[in-house]
């Protein structure tokens, strides 16, 4: 029995249901514990960060699910959201406050949502956003093997996705190919918010204090890079760095995570 099978067994315990049932039909899959090596690292920061096992949504949150959320939570509707929590383009492609319309199929990932909104959704669903370390740990899995770094198909999928503009109508979230853990769409569907996106570039007070050039620009980023050849990781880092919590973009969605019940933690 492989490690994945073992986890599936451990997970026979159902996770407690809170919030709107409709929004939580998405399967949550166990991501085995591991560690995450940030692409950029400040002096004094550990090279690798230990990540405990956790549960991750099988796929990104869909328009239909987000519609259920805003239906019961009026203050997150397009017309009612505070400008502090989302910029004007929030859910811009929806036909109305409670109407998806042709550009936002119900089964497609929801995009043009702010970090605040994504976080509110997760809380409503009884979950949370994954941390950068958790997300990257999950994304490190390949399609056919746990170690995605050595899975050429994974690199190809990321490459092909990056080579195409954002389609005006996104494909269904559940249509993406499942990876080794059964998780879909971490590569090649949409970018995804993470809880601590804003730590992507800067941790200390300033560049001078950390003694590290945190600029991602030109060659500077490569100086402190763990693997300057991991372009996909750099692009995620660059994207997270370009955001503030109220931003929304056409290719940025999210999925939820949850801690494993204590007794099932390895």
């Amino acid at each position, binding site marked *: 029995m492989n490690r994945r099978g073992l986890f599936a067994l451990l997970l026979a315990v159902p996770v407690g249901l809170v919030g709107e049932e409709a929004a939580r039909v998405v399967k949550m899959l166990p991501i085995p514990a591991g560690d995450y090596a*940030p692409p950029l690292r400040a002096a004094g*920061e*550990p090279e690798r*960060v*230990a*990540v*405990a096992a956790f549960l991750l949504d099988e796929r990104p949150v869909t328009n239909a699910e987000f519609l259920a959320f805003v239906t019961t939570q009026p203050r997150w509707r397009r017309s009612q959201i505070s400008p*502090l929590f989302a910029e004007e*383009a929030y859910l811009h492609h929806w036909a109305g406050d409670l109407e998806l319309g042709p550009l936002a199929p119900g089964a497609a990932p929801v995009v043009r949502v702010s970090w*605040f909104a994504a976080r509110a959704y997760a809380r409503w669903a009884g979950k*949370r956003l994954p*941390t*950068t*370390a958790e997300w990257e740990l999950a994304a490190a899995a390949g399609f056919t093997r746990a170690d995605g770094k050595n899975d050429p198909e994974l*690199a190809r999928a990321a*490459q*092909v996705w*990056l*080579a*195409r*503009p*954002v389609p*005006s109508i996104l494909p269904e979230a559940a249509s993406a190919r499942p990876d080794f853990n059964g998780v879909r769409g971490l590569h090649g569907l949409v*970018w995804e918010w993470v*809880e*601590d996106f*804003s*730590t*992507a*570039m*800067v*941790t200390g*007070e*300033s560049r001078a204090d950390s003694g590290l050039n*945190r*600029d*991602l*620009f*030109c060659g500077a*980023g490569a100086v402190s890079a763990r693997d*300057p*050849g991991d*372009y996909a990781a*750099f*692009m995620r*880092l*660059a*994207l997270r*760095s*370009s*955001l*503030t*919590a109220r*931003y*929304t*973009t*056409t*290719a*940025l969605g999210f999925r939820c995570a949850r*801690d494993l019940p204590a007794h099932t933690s390895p």
Partner: protein
Amino acid sequence: MKTHPLLFPSIPLLALALLAGRAPAAEGPSAAQGPVILPPEVLALPVEQAVLTSPPRVPPPIARKHAARVIVHLEVREFVARLADGVDYTFWTYGGSVPGSFIRIREGDVVEFHLENHPSSKVPHNIDLHAVTGSGGGASATFTAPGHASKFTFQALNPGLYVYHCATAPVPMHIANGMYGLILVEPKAGMPPVDREFYVMQGEFYTTGRYGEEGLQAFDLAKSIDERPPYVLFNGAVGSLVGDKAVTAKVGETVRIYFGVGGPNLTSSFHVIGEIFDKVWPEGGTKFVQENVQTTMVPAGGATIVDFKVEVPGTFILVDHSLSRAFNKGALGMLKVEGPENRVIYSGKEIDAVYLGAQAAAGSEAARREAELQTRIAAEMKANPAIAGLTKEVQIEKGKQVYMGLCFACHQADGNGLPGVFPPLAKSDYMLADRERAIRTILKGMTGKVTVNGQTYDSVMPPLEAAITDAQAADVLTYVFNAWGNSGDAFTPAQVKSVRNETR
């Protein structure tokens, strides 16, 4: 949940900071510092909108003799477009072209720069203008998420021709997707006037497929890191400066090319075939240091200005003189010059004659003995009625010798020529149809398209009138009209002579 303290700052604090309208330190380069307070003397400057052009066009020279506040709006867009025939690529562009819009300002100008990242963009972008004095050349000030716009202000302190490019990680990929362009900061005294100005930039494209492989091609990370591009191109596509899209000038005009290299990796050996750069501003600097240059080296992330007067008409080919790039990877453009010829400066091909290598030189002992022999044979033939009666057969035999000396290399011993290259003489409908034309072809040569037995040929037959006598021509014609299944009357030296004496 276990979290690392450094990776997981206090979210309430972060939210508070945002609510207060002040971006926290953790926001990194997205943090906006607010509008710059410009001093009264800058605010007093006239305001103008920059004229932006897509390649190969260049905005008009700056006529004003004072500084201005120049407003530049540059939009970043990601879209699929043609890289070569049948080959598409997702370009990332400034202003919708590769290279991006040409920006022209004047030394001392204060530039209000807006970078707009279209909402459909997949990734954030920024701009590092080498003309900017300041951290990152504007890169951190313009780091912009999809669907957002950034603004920053700079003063153009140094004149010169500068590259701009995207400097968002991973930078080589952003540049390899087309994110570069040129900004010219004219010196206060202006640039010397010329008749034509063009904008050309070189850059590599790292496609997963080999050169010419059809379909939408993805960026190939491994080829990029190894610096092995299938494409090295001028102005972002194979053939972007070729044929109908060639740049043009007239004889007597002075042409200026603002030439830059986006890279991301390769240096260009920029050369225009058939021209000499009268002036080069090496590396895009403003101190004129070089005249009469054949090939100028332009570094990745660098530029050069070249001026040259076009004295004669013709098509002048722009290349990276690292020629595999021009021949196999697309680094090729054209300047078409129209106007009257000047054959003293350039005559064109004056003579195309057969060169036979080491043959008996005229006046040598061997030549003298050969001539003596020919005379004796001629006398013998004339005196002997039996031989004289076999004129046609003799002509065929002698003609075969001529043929094997002058003709067989192209038309082959079996008279079948080389398919597609040299037309056949055996059963040649073209040749057999017109005897006089056959004589003319041997004497005067032939160029251009000709259809023989249904196949089109387009090569050169050299004129042989200087190489053979009338008798030799009559002999070889008789031979080819009677060999390989052909049949026809003998040719006489008199027939050849009359064609030879035709005035052109």
